[in-house]
């Protein structure tokens, strides 16, 4: 019996595939960009849609303005939605206020690690430095000039983790890495200008994170520069995309559902990472990745999982 209990706990902690939403369960998602942005927002929408138990999924996307998001979060809570997901670290203040007004509603917000001490709030985050590191290792191996460029938005949170991890991985392979933060999550033109700057400096491999990177990907396509994506599978952006770090937020959502089924309504912080399968590296079938480079990536994954590689 005791053995069974331990196995059950481990299964729950690892995000069991069989964890189902209760019957009639409703999930409301509030996210800053479009639900099909091939990036941050799409990753949580895809995860919710992958949940077992066929929960009803309600989505309010495109809420760049925090006040708009707060209205949507409060609206879902008032409407009796069982789990309200505020998918944006900028929504933290709103969640903290609204969760106190609706103690029977369960809230989850990320990417962050703070539940504000509230019993009905979950927080979730991504160890995006891990996948970033793996792709940085492969980027260094693929680069012929030895120059790699990374386009980031603002030097905070998930974006900084990813950029730092990618840089560390690429530098471990001997590459010269330049990073530029445009200062904006949405300025596509600045992302393009950044990529053009890299192109003029003999950069032949790039990566980037946040919604505005499509501007940089466009330059990569035009200039035939290799690209590594993150947050969602970006392979359909072109055959210059080598691989993407993909978040499987369902790992977190299944953990939360397991908690809910056990009567726990919040107060916990969960993370997706390579070890728990919440982060995976998906390769672009249209890109002919050399086997030895892929092996380097797989070795890096194993090293991070067993602790022999540090991403910092």
């Amino acid at each position, binding site marked *: 019996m005791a053995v069974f209990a331990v196995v059950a706990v481990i299964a729950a902690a690892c995000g069991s595939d069989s964890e189902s939403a209760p019957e009639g369960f409703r999930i409301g998602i509030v996210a800053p*960009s*479009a*639900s*099909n*942005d*091939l990036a941050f927002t799409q990753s949580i929408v895809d995860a919710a849609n992958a949940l077992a138990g066929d929960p009803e999924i309600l989505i309010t*996307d*495109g809420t*760049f303005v925090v006040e708009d998001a707060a209205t949507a979060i409060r609206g879902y809570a008032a409407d009796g939605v069982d789990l309200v997901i505020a998918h944006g670290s900028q929504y933290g203040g709103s969640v903290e206020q609204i969760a106190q007004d609706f103690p029977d509603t369960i809230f989850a917000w990320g990417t962050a690690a703070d539940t504000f001490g509230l019993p009905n709030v979950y927080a979730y985050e991504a160890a995006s430095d891990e996948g970033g590191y793996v792709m940085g290792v492969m980027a260094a191996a693929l680069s012929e000039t030895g120059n790699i*460029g990374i386009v980031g938005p603002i*030097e905070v949170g998930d974006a900084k983790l990813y950029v730092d991890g990618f840089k560390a991985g690429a530098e471990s392979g001997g590459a010269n890495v*330049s*990073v*530029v*933060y*445009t*200062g*904006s999550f*949405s*300025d*596509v*033109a*600045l992302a*393009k*200008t*950044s990529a*053009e*700057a*890299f*192109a*003029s*400096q*003999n950069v032949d491999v790039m990566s980037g994170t946040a*919604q*505005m990177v*499509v*501007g940089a*990907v*466009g330059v990569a*396509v*035009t200039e035939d520069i290799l690209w590594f994506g993150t947050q969602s599978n970006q392979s*359909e*952006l*072109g055959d210059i995309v080598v691989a993407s770090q993909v978040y499987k937020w369902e790992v977190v959502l299944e953990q939360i559902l397991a908690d809910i089924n056990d009567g726990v309504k919040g107060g916990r912080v969960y993370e997706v990472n390579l070890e728990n399968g919440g982060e995976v590296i998906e390769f672009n079938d249209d890109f002919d990745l050399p086997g030895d480079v892929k092996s380097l990536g797989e070795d890096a994954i194993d090293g991070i999982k067993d602790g022999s590689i540090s991403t910092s």
Partner: protein
Amino acid sequence: MSEFFTEAVLIATIASGIRFAVPLLLAGLGEAYGQRSGVLNLGVDGVMLLGAFGGYYTVLKVGNVWIGLLAGLGVGLILGLISAFITVTLKADQGISGIGVFLFGLGMSDLLFQRLVGTPRFIDTFPRIEIPLLGDIPWIGEMLFRQNLVVYLAFLAIPVSMVVINRTTFGMKIRAVGENPEAADSLGVSVAKVRYATMLIGGTLAGVAGAALAIDLGIFQQNITNAQGFIAIALVYFGAWRPLGVMLGALLYGFVNSLVIQWKTLGIITDSWSDFAAMAPAIITILALVVVATRFRAPSALTKPFERGE
């Protein structure tokens, strides 16, 4: 710093600065027409957004960038007509109605994108055209004369606008209506017609600016202009309501943006100064604006609806 003074990097910096400036230049030029006739249109960014979506979606469906540009032009023309109806015929407060047009453009462009396109997909971009002989000049040729057709047309619009505003009867009517609409009206000039005309020009150029931006980037996404329409309005003040001034402002803004990014990528601007550097284009523009504001004055009738007999 020595890395910056290499041929490839300098050329890329200047070429990017020019490309960055073009949407601002087109939108600012259109806004200058309106303001010279006394109409402030704060909805430029909304028109640009819908022009951007119109251009992007058309290229996505038709596969021709020039038809896409025409679609942006058409969208701008229609929105210019609507803006003129609101501000000239209905005599609504120009500030409030402009904000309304902006919000309409912001929301509608995103809604249309979500419903009609969904996942971002790249489209063809403008082909570069090398000007014979000029394009062969070392360094200068690649910086200036290997751009796309829209860039050349945008800069051609500057002397054309200077002639139109300063040397034609239509331009004289624009200036008269902007300075003293009552006097212009007493001389038989239709204030409403002139303001309609400038609003149509402004809307058209804003629509073209948006379409040019989206087609140049090869992609559309929510709020793709990132407030460039508002920067264009500021550049009209910066340029003292003159086409040449608007051009200089747009180029300054574009070059500073491009320079800051290039210096960041080269590590000349360190991480600790990165955020301050990101503000540089706006700060420089504001400082220049202050200088201009002390030396030039706005059209006297700017933002004032015209009522015959007042």
